[in-house]
């Protein structure tokens, strides 16, 4: 009997959203709602220079005149933007100088999440910037990175210490007027990571940011800016989780990447925000604007994303291929289960000569979820010899889910060669039978087949995270068969 009980426990454990706990920590919040005063409050909290405050206020005033986009294939009740907190920070008297001074409760939280912040775990060799609600808690490996000349710090610190870089690049890829959520973010962004890789430097380690929403009723608005100067290389990874709640929380981030001549940026995301419970209650609304600008010749930007969480995902990491011979890549796995809704894809804007892009998107929908790929490949008049290959495959598990593909292909230059293909299929009974007949359980078999289906993309992830992502794929699909 004990064994049965144990099994039941284990199964129950596995089915739950592992990161759904809440850390009880005293925090400081901006007043409820969003007004100019909120924007001033956030700016004052961060001790920001006047130009940035003006920048925020401009964005806020513009936001007031904008309306929410409705073209995506997602549905949700109207969001009351006045019923949320736009700034929340764990209370801390002084800025911690080392890990010992950080609130142990916070460290505990990150430990539970499996993020290597403490010294012994630093052996993992990944520099981490941990963001808790609206502020950065700690950034590891700062000294070692500084030796190489790499700047890796929270955005608020960058504003203070490197204002010339921030001023030059902030908003240069995603302007404040870009879209409803990006404009909102520009007005109220509170934290995020800033990365600058100097000329001809290969960043000595993987950089990583870990985002955590903890407070109730708060939105998270981080802003990440990565600049890779001539001939440099950086690989960056972000991860995200949130506590389990029955209300919807808003996450509207902006990520800007700038790659100068011969530079390469590899940006990977493992997104695992709380997806809502079985009835579709709660979960994070993930409305994110991510864009990379291949500004210099021969530059390269590669997006890899594993999207398993969020109640609603609205996200299109894009590449502007401005420099000649630049290259953009987009590898995506989007898994939706339960009542999740995903509308994700990419934009490849070919402006320079001999630019190439590659899009591999794998959508897996299970339960009652809806999964949409929406992508644009656009070739401008002066972009000679452009090459694009797009493949988007959808896998349906069960007959209550849906999968959509909405590609836009626009060419104004005859030398371009563009190819697009898409397929939709389901896991065949033969494949399942073959696995089960060899003693593999049904759910495990599904996970195995799905892992094979998205292998092309998983291979693009940095090694440390590939393993985690593979497990995540399995967990996300639990309860989807039978």
């Amino acid at each position: 009997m004990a064994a049965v009980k144990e099994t039941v426990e284990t199964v129950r454990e596995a089915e739950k959203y592992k990161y759904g706990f809440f850390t009880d920590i005293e925090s400081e919040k901006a007043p409820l709602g969003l007004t100019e005063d909120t924007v001033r409050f956030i700016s004052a909290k961060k001790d920001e220079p006047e130009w940035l405050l003006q920048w925020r206020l401009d964005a806020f005033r513009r936001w007031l005149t904008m309306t929410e986009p409705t073209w995506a294939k997602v549905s949700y009740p109207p969001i009351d933007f006045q019923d949320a907190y736009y700034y929340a920070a764990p209370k801390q008297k002084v800025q911690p100088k080392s890990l010992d001074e950080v609130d142990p409760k916070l460290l505990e939280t990150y430990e539970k999440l499996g993020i290597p912040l403490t010294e012994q775990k630093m052996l993992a060799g990944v520099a981490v910037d941990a963001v808790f609600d609206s502020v950065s808690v700690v950034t590891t490996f700062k000294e070692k990175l500084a030796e190489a000349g790499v700047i890796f710090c929270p955005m608020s610190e960058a504003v203070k210490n490197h204002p010339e870089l921030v001023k030059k690049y902030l908003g240069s890829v995603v302007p404040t007027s870009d879209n409803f959520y990006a404009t909102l973010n520009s007005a109220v962004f509170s934290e995020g990571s800033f990365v600058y890789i100097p000329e001809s430097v290969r960043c000595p380690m993987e950089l990583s940011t870990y985002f955590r929403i903890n407070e109730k009723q708060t939105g998270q608005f981080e802003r990440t800016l990565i600049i890779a100067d001539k001939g440099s290389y950086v690989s960056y990874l972000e991860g995200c989780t949130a506590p389990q709640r029955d209300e919807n929380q808003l996450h509207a981030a902006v990520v800007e990447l700038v790659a100068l001549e011969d530079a390469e940026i590899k940006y990977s995301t493992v997104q695992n925000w709380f997806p809502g419970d079985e009835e579709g209650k709660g979960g994070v609304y993930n409305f994110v604007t991510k864009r990379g600008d291949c500004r210099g010749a021969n530059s390269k930007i590669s997006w890899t994303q594993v999207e398993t969480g969020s109640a609603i995902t609205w996200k299109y990491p894009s590449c502007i291929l401005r420099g000649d011979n630049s290259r953009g890549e987009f590898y995506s796995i989007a898994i939706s289960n339960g009542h999740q809704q995903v509308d994700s894809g990419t934009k490849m804007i070919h402006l320079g000569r001999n630019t190439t892009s590659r899009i591999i998107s794998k959508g897996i929908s299970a339960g009652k979820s809806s999964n949409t790929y929406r992508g644009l490949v656009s070739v401008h008049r002066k972009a000679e010899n452009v090459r694009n290959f797009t493949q988007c495959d959808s896998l349906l598990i069960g007959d209550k889910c849906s999968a959509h593909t909405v590609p836009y292909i626009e060419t104004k230059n005859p030398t371009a060669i563009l190819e697009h293909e898409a397929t939709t299929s389901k896991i065949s009974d033969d494949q399942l039978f073959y696995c089960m007949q060899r003693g593999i359980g049904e759910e495990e078999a599904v996970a195995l087949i799905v892992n094979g289906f998205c292998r092309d993309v998983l291979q693009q992830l940095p090694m440390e995270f590939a393993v985690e992502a593979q497990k995540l794929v399995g967990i996300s699909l639990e309860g989807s068969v039978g």
Partner: protein
Amino acid sequence: MTENATRRFIEDYEARREVLPGVDGWLSRHREGAIRDFAGVGLPHRRLEEWKYTDLGRVLEKAGIEPAPLLEGAVLLPESRSAAVFETIDRHVLVFVNGRYRADLSKAARLPKGVEIHSLGDVLHEQWAKDLVERRFDEKRQAESIVDLNTALMSDGACLRVRKGVKLDKPLHLFFFSADAGASHCRNLVLLEDEAEATILETHLGEKASLADLVLDISLGVGARLNHIKLQDEAESSVHIATMRARLAAQARLSSFTLTLGCGTSRGQSFVLFAGEGAEANIDGAYALKGAQHLDQFCVIDHAVPSCNSHTLFKGVLDGESEGVFQGKVIVRPHAQKTDGRQMTHALLLSRDASMNAKPELEIYADDVQCAHGSTVGELSKDALFYLQSRGIPEAEARRLLVLAFLDEALDLAPHDEARESLRRLVSDWFAEADI
């Protein structure tokens, strides 16, 4: 921007409502509703997703949208190759000049028993015509709202009804010719009852700045078969909006093929609704554009029931500053298992200034289906050109050969043997004269 043209259409309706056919029956009420809906949304513009690549409102702002004059006297029909393309085929012919049926120029005698061919005004009292005109495929579809304009202003059209199990002996040729500038609004109705069969050929010609607003409403009964071939060769100053709405019962088959060799701004819309299992629809086309021509093919296939097949292939060649658009959507509704949906679009760009926009969409709510779409855009392969030249074929000739071979795959799908051969000859002559 588009208010002006919209208002002119509404004024046109107000002025002519008493003289449009069906003034004393259900249709006048229906027209009232349609013009109200049209006034509500106005002419489509690029901010609407389904009109993203064609700004019809802006084009019509400049075009002559007053009704084309009613011609009753002698008319000189054009003698171009396009006009003569179906001449060798034994067929019934209905001629429409400036959007009005001309009995004197038509020839549709000795129809088999069970086949009825009328002009629109003569069938409006019949229930089947009412059913066809009144139906609406999707209330929310932005592309279908333009049909309201046609409903409000339609003044003539060809109506074909084939009774159960009857086969139309010869193809029915609908010949539309714009002799003057101005607008014509035609509504064609086709009802094939169970197991009935028919072939329809359509030709659209015009040298003037005309607006052709056409709707073809089709209903196919169980096991019915309809082959449809449309040839469009109009002036560069013309505007052409054609919508085909087809509902297919079980085991029915629709094969439709459109060849466009000349147009100004043209939008072809096809809506196919599968209402019975085991039906099949092929919506295909080929086009060759030059100058500042603009062709937008919009195609929605709705798999509402299980076990239906659909196939869409559009191939086109774009020269000059022309612009091609393909927007397709295959919808597989929940429970529409065993669906097979294929959607392909390929375009060749021959000039620096030509452009192509494609948006092949899949919307799938069932899991046991096979759906695929593909899209390619490129120029003529330099290797292939070199290969032909190295064997002594001059460059111009080699280009022509390759372009014809490219279009041939689509031309193969024209669903009538004789017509297909005629079209093939037409295309090859067209390219012999064109400077590509």
